[in-house]
């Protein structure tokens, strides 16, 4: 019966096998794949995605969604920059000219505020989390438009760009930040009472309540984490690109969800680990960079991304089915009905 354990183990760590496979595949197809440039690119692409995924994982484990995080990313970065940049072209700020540090604090506060509002609507007013965060996704993005009249903000100060653009020697700060985010997330989920109680909340809110865990409070906290990390991702992305555009981060949520699910975080709540989610992020980034390395048109990249999401969902559903059914060994399933049996009608 060790077989079953092995299968479950492989299913739980499938992501790393997939990553290995994809890396080997691209290495075969392109001799530039293992060049330091490309590897750094993969990591850099992972950073913003990774920060978003860490926040999303907390929410998903409680059995909720946060679809709004890509908009939170955009609005917080935009508002933060608006506070510090001069009016008019080419910066298009608010002319308040506050210190960049205040701008950074404002970014984090905006992330917290949006996370708080999500949690408030979902737990206090008992609204459906999917719909609430979907509405926030649209509204928060909409709010961005009038602030800069659709212009691109440029000339961000260096303090602002530190997280996204600076590096210690050869290692970008963003990569370090992402790795720290995953490590801290991992430790919180595995070893902090708070993190462990999130699994109870996602597994069964009623049982969590009876065990002295307030599910609503945990859910609110998860949204706060997701909100603030989305803001951090916003700061990072702004720093990396050096400008802030209206559609910054737009559409990222699909990749975020895909990375979480491929990484083994169940959309039904109660299952998954940061380690797996990290693998999911690396896998997606690798595929992304590999495909562009092969000069495959973006349209194929989008198809590939869609396919990967589908495959991820398939794996998720099959894994849960496998784990919860604990069915007969696979060989038995192939056995044909015997001749004397009554055939089904």
């Amino acid at each position, binding site marked *: *019966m060790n077989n*079953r*354990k092995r299968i479950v183990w492989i299913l739980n760590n499938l992501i790393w096998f997939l990553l290995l496979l994809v890396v080997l595949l691209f290495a075969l197809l392109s001799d530039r794949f293992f060049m330091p440039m490309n590897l750094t690119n993969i990591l850099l692409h992972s950073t913003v995605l990774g920060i978003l995924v860490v926040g999303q994982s907390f929410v998903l484990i409680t059995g909720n969604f946060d679809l709004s995080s890509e908009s939170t990313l955009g609005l917080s970065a935009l508002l933060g920059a608006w506070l510090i940049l001069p009016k008019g072209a080419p910066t298009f700020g608010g002319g308040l000219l506050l210190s960049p540090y205040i701008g950074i604090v404002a970014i984090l506060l905006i992330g917290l505020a949006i996370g708080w509002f999500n949690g408030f609507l979902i737990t206090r007013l008992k609204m459906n989390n999917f719909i609430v965060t979907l509405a926030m996704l649209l509204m928060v993005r909409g709010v961005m438009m009038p602030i800069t009249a659709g212009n691109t903000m440029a000339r961000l100060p260096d303090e602002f760009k530190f997280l996204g653009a600076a590096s210690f020697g050869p290692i970008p700060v963003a990569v370090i930040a992402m790795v720290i985010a995953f490590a801290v997330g991992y*430790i919180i989920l*595995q*070893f*902090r*009472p708070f993190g*462990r*109680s999130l*699994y*109870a909340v996602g*597994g*069964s809110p*009623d*049982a*969590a*309540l*009876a*065990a*002295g*865990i*307030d599910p609503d409070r945990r859910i609110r906290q998860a949204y706060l984490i997701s909100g603030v990390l989305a803001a951090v991702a916003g700061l990072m992305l702004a720093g990396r690109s050096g400008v802030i555009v209206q559609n910054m981060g737009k559409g990222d949520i699909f990749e975020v969800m895909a990375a979480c699910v491929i990484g083994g975080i169940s959309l039904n709540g*109660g*299952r998954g680990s940061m380690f797996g989610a990290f693998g999911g992020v690396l896998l997606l980034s690798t595929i992304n960079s590999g495909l562009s390395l092969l000069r495959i048109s973006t349209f194929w990249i989008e198809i590939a991304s869609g396919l990967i999401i589908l495959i991820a969902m398939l794996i998720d559903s099959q894994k849960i089915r496998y*784990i*919860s059914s*604990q*069915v*007969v*060994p696979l060989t*038995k*399933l192939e056995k044909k*009905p*015997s001749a*004397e*049996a*009554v055939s*089904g*009608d």
Partner: protein
Amino acid sequence: MVASDSPFVVQMQDIVKMFPGVRALDHVNFELKPGELRSLVGKNGAGKSTLMNVLAGIYQPEEGKIYVNGQLIHPMTTERARQLGIAFVHQHSQLVPALSIAENIFLGNPLTGGSGFMAWKRLNDEARKRLNTLGLEIDVERKVEDLTVAEKQIIEIAKALFANAHTIILDEATAPLPKDEVNMLFDFVRRQSQQGVAFVYISHYIEEVFELCEVVTVMRDGQIVGDYKVANLDQAELIRLISGTRVEQFHRESRNGSGKTVLEIHGLNRPGFYQDIDLVIHEGEVLGLTGLEGCGKANLARGLYCLEPLGKGQVVLNGKPYHPDEPEAALDAGVAYLPRDRHGMGIVGMRPVGENVTFSILKRLTSRFGLLDTGRERKHILSFVEKLGIKTPSVNQPVEFLSGGNQQKVVFAKLVSAEPRVLFLDEPTQGVDVQAKVEIMKIIDQLSRQGVSSVIVSEEIREMLDVCDRILVMYNGAIVAEFKVGDPNFAAEKILMAVEGEREAL
């Protein structure tokens, strides 16, 4: 269905079913005649549910054959089982919570009245009519999620009966039911069996087995021990067959303890649920709280643990006012609660046994930097698994894969872990086998010796007599009688009378 000469409606031959680490069924033979009332008993994890799951097509056996009305059915699937007239009423509800009773009853064959639209009025009328034939007067438009466990069970049993089943499996169907409804159910089951419907009745209530059935099949460790005529057995003998050894009946001498007051309630009122509750619980005391379903006893316990509003009144714990606003605060104050609805509130099914044991005490298991000391946690878990005899292949096994009784022990481990001063136990022996019942009684007794007070909220008066010092009876929201167990002029019959609300008992 083809008529056949087979004297059996159901025949299972040489069934083998493996689970990781366990041979849940080991060459089991099981036969059932039409209209038979058969009881299936055995310890927790003996394989009763598994055998019936195989019969109902939920699990595929590794070996063995299943005949229904003399015909070999291979493979048996849930679909085929239903078509063939085998219905399974599970340990926990399989109804759709968001739908009404009427909708649940007609789930799968909606009445559209020919127009293609749901004929709501006809649906409700028809559902009401059918339930009336079972002697049930229920508002069929209520949502299932608003029903009590008892009501859900009744609807589920009714639904199986409406589906024209000839073999109905009741897997601990009565465990969550109040006594008067059990009687109603039994009357109903007997009537149906006279019409030719066979029943398999799984239960840990030995008295019920004797009351309802003629033949009892005993299982142990995945094998059949034998079929016995109930007339030739007594309870002690049956218990011995079930456990394979002698199980000494647990009996605790009622004691006075230190007499120190731990919890004091004065004039507690919650309109519609209970009134004028005055109650004193002493240190190390085991208090029984009984009464009919809906008498308010469960609401009182849940209220004191903040799972529902408590109402107005004075509550004092250890000399200090007790006004927790959430279960966590109640736990911190030293009050713990074992829920009646194990699947809904007791366990987090998908999470491992170990995590379930420590969910309530994570804060206490931290060391430096507020991180969990996993070594200490593991030790704690293992010690409880051993102490309570939890049967599981590993502490990493998701709890939902344990047998019912072992799940209950996990819940108990979680409670006792929190080192409470006062324990509220809502039907604590539900779904627990005779031996484990005794073990649970022993745990309660041991806790009482350490000064922990327990309040057992239950309708199992017989069990309460074995462990309680005092038994309070509630009727219509008021405490109407108090009995001191071991009093010279104490009689169990008086409790039964008080439960029914008869004044002479007082």
